[in-house]
């Protein structure tokens, strides 16, 4: 009897692991579909618009239909934690981890209209969280700060993220776009992704913190409102 129960428990555990693995694979397929194939299709569509109208008419409807399918599959495949937890709790989770793993005290300020949050795609939410994660990694590794503050503001057309700390600052190296001990490679990678999403990424002045990364990500761009 005991052995039978053990088998049942093992079976559940194994099938859960399988399911978890499935999700990881699906999620990365979703990202590839969206970030690479989706972008290539957009470029292709732009190229086609330069062709003769009668040729365009033959190709464009099929292309649009493929694009739509890819987008739906990508979204379907990309359901992970942020869908469960929402943007704020996910961000709080990152800040909680960062504060716990360092001696730096962290806070988050946000003003978010729930309805607006519902309109944001998984990809955009994920990018927002990746930005926060990289910003925090940078603070923990390089800033020698004693406190940091993350703010998250959802506007109708864009999301503003600021990641501020009272540490040594990364102004000089950042301006020269040199990857150094102080800046790290993570932020540069993020900056490229923000650029691809037609967002902006800057170091801004503040009278309260020595370093403030200010990021704006348009909501429509990654939501496929094209």
């Amino acid at each position: 009897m005991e052995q039978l129960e053990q088998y049942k428990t093992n079976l559940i555990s194994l099938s859960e692991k399988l399911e978890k693995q499935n999700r990881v694979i699906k999620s990365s397929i979703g990202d590839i579909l969206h970030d690479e194939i989706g972008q290539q299709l957009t470029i292709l569509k732009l190229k086609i618009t330069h062709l003769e109208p009668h040729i365009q008419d033959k190709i464009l409807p099929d292309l649009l239909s493929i694009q739509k399918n890819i987008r739906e599959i990508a979204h379907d495949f990309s359901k992970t934690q942020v869908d469960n937890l929402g943007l704020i709790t996910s961000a709080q989770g990152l800040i909680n981890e960062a504060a716990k793993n360092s001696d730096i005290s962290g806070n988050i300020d946000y003003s978010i209209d729930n309805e607006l949050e519902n309109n944001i795609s998984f990809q955009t939410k994920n990018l927002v969280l990746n930005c926060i994660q990289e910003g925090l990694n940078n603070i923990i590794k390089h800033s020698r700060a004693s406190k940091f503050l993350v703010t998250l503001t959802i506007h109708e057309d864009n999301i503003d993220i600021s990641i501020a700390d009272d540490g040594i600052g990364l102004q000089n190296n950042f301006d020269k776009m040199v990857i150094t001990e102080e800046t790290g490679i993570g932020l540069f990678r993020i900056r490229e992704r923000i650029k691809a999403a037609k967002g902006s990424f800057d170091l801004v002045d503040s009278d309260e913190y020595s370093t403030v990364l200010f990021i704006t990500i348009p909501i429509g761009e990654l939501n496929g409102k094209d």
Partner: protein
Amino acid sequence: MEKIKVLFADDHNLVRQGIIGLLSESEDIMVAAEGECGRDLIEKYPLVMPDVVLSDITMRNLSGFDALKEILKTYPDAKFLFLSMFYSEEYIYKIYSIGGKGLISKDTNVNDLGLAINTVYNGGYYFNGLSDEEIMEIIGRFEALSNRSREGASELSPREKKIMRHLSKGKSSEEIAIEIGIGKRSVDAARSAIMNKLKITTSAKLLAHAVEHYSVD
């Protein structure tokens, strides 16, 4: 003795059958109905009126969290215990904050699952065997992240007040940037910070607030 009536949903058939199998050996718990998504929970809750809802989090159609929010609107005493492969601290906080009673890992055994269901049934919280103190410590830590207790956390800085005075005159970020000698993006960042501090969610409300409180004339 009447058994504890459980309504159970999981979209993974093998897991569902496995858990039902485990619970079928329990002396004080019975699975009264099962489903494979949040919609099933919403549909079956009024029919079954379960003592405890045992639910997966991520499910097709409607998640367990969304089902909980919906059911609580009509049945505020509903007791939800989540069964999931996710059990990090943010999940504990999320479940607590939306009115759930517990979380147990799917790698569980019949004893722990029985204990979790009994604890939730008796009005307690069960989060993977953590003590009440540990649970409250996590909740407190998460709440503190967002409710800065330090003095003046919601007060505007001198520069922010200056920006509000300019905003009240209807000036754009570009104009304000030139006026006070900082970059436009710094003005944008300050506007966002102000909105967060004042818990304002739209630019229109920000402008109205600026006009009401920071007009110089």
